């Protein structure tokens, strides 16, 4: 059962071929056996999961089951889960038991899904390799020497190793798409405002967006049906009807206009990765799509702009971790200043501190105009790049990441090199448009992701584009040998 997609599991449950309890047990067993090496999950909620699975089976018996009822999943440890530790990958919140559920958690629970645990992540979602986690790095199931990507590295690895059929992730600068690409799974970052951020621990509020991670585009569509929608507790969520994301999956791609930004195929792109992406595009030509080159002229400004705006917001968002009300507090503080300095000094890891310092600097009196304000202006230019391009084409395609998964430790001493892992994903968050990564093949034995970018609220089209590709390819069904 563990090799099936969410859609297939849903069908099996419907057909009575298995039960939620049996399914949950299967995945819990795999977690117990395989997770110690991968470190993809940092909390496993076995008892609660089995109890929830039992309830799901009872719902089904009562005829009240939906397509997600009884399906196990794991939440990135950035989503607050009531009564369960929500650490955000940080020592700072190692002792934090959330007293409430995030809206996303609540919605998926209401849809009958069974949470089996929380996944590892870069500390406060700051990282592209899952190496900044307080709980240690996550291994890539395709090669344990390789990183899984980040920050949703635990979710990506868990799905890739079939420890869960689907997982939630969050994406501030590529944190769903890049690990999805590096682990050979599918992941969607919805339009900013499409999925509620309530209960999702903030990194950079104007960029953060939750989304689903799974094997197939169809699975993402099923998840989106439950996750998306306006939330009165999140002022930035958009009041707009949620379509049935599975409705258009079968649409033909005949005449689909695909744009390939020339800036995404230039210097820095690994040639093997480029070949895989080009082959995927060729597949789309065969499906009837028209492909043309486009330009996103401000692409090279995205990384610098992002590394002003995201740390600036983070420096403020992370001020609440002061050792006063919850979270880590240093031993025997001598006074208030000592309490602040040591609690934060000991509770945060180096990457988080680096970004808090950068962000604090960017917002400081005398520097605000030159950095933060300027970055916001350039951000508008980047957004305009996308809106202009998406007037010409239906979707934009390119590589999700310039390289395949790199080795553990390979970039951890070079922050700038690490930041460049997200060169193709970051601009999308700055613009707020939706984007997806789907598996498109392998380079040097490691997975390659194809990124598909769409217009605001055009997730249904992205999923349709992904699904059609997955009807004629089987990259999304490949499993790492050790975990097959």
């Amino acid at each position, binding site marked *: 059962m563990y090799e099936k997609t969410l859609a297939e599991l849903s069908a099996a449950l419907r057909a009575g071929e298995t039960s939620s309890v049996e399914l949950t047990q299967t995945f819990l067993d795999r977690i117990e056996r395989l997770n110690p090496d991968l470190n993809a999950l940092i909390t496993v909620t076995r008892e609660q999961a089995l109890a929830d699975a039992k309830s799901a089976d009872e719902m089904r018996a009562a005829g009240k089951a939906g397509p997600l009822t009884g399906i196990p999943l794991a939440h990135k440890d950035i989503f*607050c889960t009531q009564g369960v530790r929500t650490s955000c990958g940080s020592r700072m919140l190692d002792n934090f038991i959330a007293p*409430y559920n995030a809206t996303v958690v609540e919605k998926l629970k209401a849809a009958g899904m069974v949470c089996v645990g929380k996944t590892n992540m870069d500390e406060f979602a700051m990282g592209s390799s899952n190496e900044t986690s307080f709980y240690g790095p996550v291994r890539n199931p395709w090669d344990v020497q390789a990183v899984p990507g980040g920050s949703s590295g635990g979710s990506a690895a868990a799905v890739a190793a079939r420890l869960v059929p689907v997982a939630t992730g969050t994406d501030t600068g590529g944190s769903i798409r890049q690990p999805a690409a590096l682990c050979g799974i599918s992941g969607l970052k919805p339009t900013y405002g499409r999925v509620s951020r309530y*209960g999702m621990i*903030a990194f950079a509020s*104007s960029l953060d967006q939750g989304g689903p991670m799974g094997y197939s585009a169809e699975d993402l569509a099923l998840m989106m049906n439950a996750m998306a929608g306006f939330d009165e507790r999140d002022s930035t969520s958009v009041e707009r009807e949620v379509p049935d994301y599975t409705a258009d999956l079968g649409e033909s791609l005949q005449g689909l206009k695909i744009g390939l930004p020339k800036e995404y195929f230039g210097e820095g792109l690994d040639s093997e990765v480029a070949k895989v992406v080009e082959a995927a595009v060729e597949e789309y030509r065969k499906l009837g799509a028209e492909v043309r080159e486009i330009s996103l002229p401000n692409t090279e400004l995205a990384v610098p702009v992002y590394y002003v705006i995201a740390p600036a917001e983070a420096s403020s968002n992370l001020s609440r971790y002061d050792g006063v009300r919850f979270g880590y507090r240093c031993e025997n503080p001598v006074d208030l200043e000592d309490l602040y300095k040591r609690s934060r000094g000991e509770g945060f890891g180096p990457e988080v501190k680096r970004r808090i310092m950068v962000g604090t600097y960017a917002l400081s009196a005398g520097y*605000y105009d030159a950095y933060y304000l300027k970055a916001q202006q350039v951000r508008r230019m980047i957004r305009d790049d996308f809106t202009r391009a998406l007037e010409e084409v239906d979707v934009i395609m390119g590589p999700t990441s310039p390289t395949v998964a790199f080795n553990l430790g390979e970039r951890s001493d070079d922050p700038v090199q690490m930041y460049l892992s997200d060169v193709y994903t970051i601009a999308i968050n700055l613009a707020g448009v939706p984007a997806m990564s789907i598996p498109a093949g392998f380079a040097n034995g490691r997975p390659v992701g194809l990124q598909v970018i769409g217009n605001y609220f055009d997730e249904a089209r992205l999923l349709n584009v992904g699904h059609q590709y997955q009807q004629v390819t089987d990259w999304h069904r490949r499993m790492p040998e050790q975990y097959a």
Partner: protein
Amino acid sequence: MEWETVIGLEIHAQLATKSKIFSGASTAYGAAPNTQACAVDLGLPGVLPVLNKDVVRMAVKFGLAIGAKVAPRSVFARKNYFYPDLPKGYQISQYELPVVEQGMLEIELEDGSTKNVGVTRAHLEEDAGKSMHEDFEGMSGIDLNRAGTPLLEIVSEPDLRSAKEAVAYMKKLHSLVRYLEICDGNMQEGSFRCDANVSVRPKGQKEFGTRAELKNLNSFRFVERAINIEVERQIDLLESGGTVVQETRLYDSVKNETRSMRTKEEANDYRYFPDPDLLPLDIEPAFIDQVRATLPELPDEKRRRFIDEYKLSVYDAGVLTSSREMADFFEAVVRESGGQAKMSANWVMGDFSGALNKDGLEIGDSPVTPTMLGQLLQRIADNTISGKIAKEVFEAMWNGEGMPDDIIEKRGLKQVTDTGAIEAMIDEVLAANPGQVEQYKGGKDKLLGFFVGQVMKLSKGKANPAQLNELLKKKLAE
């Protein structure tokens, strides 16, 4: 050298909403610590603020009342600093784009003239919690009930020239926010707080002097005292060759002094930036019109109307319109008394206000209603009782003895107007005091008062004074 004082006030008015500015928790005062702080107020990981629409309505109402510009778009910003009672490590406030800009408030000065004071801006923000240092040995307690309470910070232009003007402005604003029913004005509970920016300059100089910001001025009296003491300090300093440094100073009401809290160099860099969790606040013209339609008659209009309609003096009209409750009570008494405006004004400002003060009551808690007081005034007007007897009846009403007519009846206080009865009493008095009668007739007119007093005493105060006077003079002339 002659010095001129320059003052600008920043007033924090707590908006009288049921729930907080960005959460659904209650704003009621006095609950047990931390029982009115929800996940949002505690700044738990993952929570988000959602703006309370009532807060916007109240800010717009205020803006309209001072003839200000209501911004079609204003922006919430984060003011970043660390403090234990500031749960998020930042306060959500408005910085570059406030909701209200450029208003005006007219104040009355002691010499009866008026002065316009500019209101630079009014912006919305959340309050912080409270740190409690007394009750915990070697530790501090944090109460976050107040965290997230909505505040309207009202910033004046540096238009005020004395402590007295500052107090007049503050009182005017205090009255206005209560008229508008956007703030309960309770200064003990901190619902209406004031910081004062104070500087001095040689008279005639255009440039402002260096200012000090005075904190913790939680009564009208303290504002006046703190400003005077600070002005004195600055002048002494300058005249002895020193310079004033820009700093925040705390007023100590026990020692009656101000002392430095922090200098400009020690001030925080608040790193303001637009709060990405909140959309810009867009206010539609239709909403402004809707709020405008709910504006009550404002103090200045009401005062003018009182002078006009009830022929009151400027002073009386000012006192009676100082609060909406007082004005409403007065007008009800006028109605109930059948239009006795002057008498109503005297009684409301006199015995009635005196009784409230004595018992420490608010108008709403008064045992005497406008109907009761109105009836009492009617009885004075129709000569059933004298003004003096009325005071006795008033006291009885205050003590819960019922309506004036019942009290007059029960206590037999009805005025004696029967000529025969009054004459009989006069005769009795004159007969008992032949010596005084002799002196009066010999030209000592002043003794008339003595006879009036004696007759009144005999009548237990019930003789109609006018009649008594007339009859007495007649008798003495015989």
